[in-house]
């Protein structure tokens, strides 16, 4: 068992963190996400659809209101148009897989450490 001193982070855990990051970076979910992200960045049509939806969403948040069903329907139309793009759909699918992977990882670390590691990593707020 390691007994970590005050400079433990730099000296001992540094190596463990690097190896852990390397293992994550080589796992299928991470590689698939990276690939999907690269494809998305290279697809001009996808980029313009994301921008178009982002602009509409911003306008809706600035001037719209959630009870305005016509504005909401229009925003949904743009979202559906965006999601019909294969590169975007694939990106979100891989992002969901990656998110679930990290949540599993968080649960595993919490079980070993003995407290909720995800909660411990969250910035301190007045909420919850």
């Amino acid at each position: 068992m390691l007994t970590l001193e005050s400079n433990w982070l730099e000296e001992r855990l540094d190596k463990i963190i690097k190896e852990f990051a390397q293992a994550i970076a080589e796992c299928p979910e991470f590689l698939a996400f990276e690939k999907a992200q690269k494809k998305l960045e290279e697809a001009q049509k996808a980029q313009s659809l994301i921008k178009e939806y982002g602009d509409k969403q911003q306008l809706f948040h600035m001037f719209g209101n959630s009870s305005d069903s016509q504005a909401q329907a229009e925003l949904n139309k743009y979202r559906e148009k965006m999601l019909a793009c294969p590169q975007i759909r694939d990106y979100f699918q891989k992002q969901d897989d990656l998110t679930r992977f990290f949540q599993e990882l968080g649960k595993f670390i919490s079980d070993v450490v003995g407290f909720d590691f995800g909660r411990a990593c969250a910035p301190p707020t007045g909420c919850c």
Partner: protein
Amino acid sequence: MLSGLISAGPALRQPDVVRRIKMNTEVREKAKDFASALKSSLPVVAYFQAQKKMETDKETLALISQFQKKQKELWLNQRNRNFTPAEIMSFRKLQAKIIGSPIVREFSLAQAKAFNLCRSVAGSLSELLGVDFGTLISPPSSC
């Protein structure tokens, strides 16, 4: 390096196509090494010691229980807009008593140090991976 994640809202969640994620042995082993090292670190050891001390001190436990009860009452009364200044004053007195308790203070400080360390290591992992590690491993928040 990944530039970050894009959000397009909850409509993208498709429970019918959710696939099971299974961590591979390599990630599991490295995660275990990482978590074990973290558990053995001085701030985390001190945090568990302070927690144990707090949980075994009868006086502190009674104070916390009293505080939680009062907090719940106040919360319910607040919802019904049915609380008096005297009740608030009594709650604040209890709150001050808790904050002033050396055992609670020790625990609170130890927890802050341990959690700071967790944020620090999560920050290092985020830098190496190019994604926000701390946010990704946290379960979705209700707030």
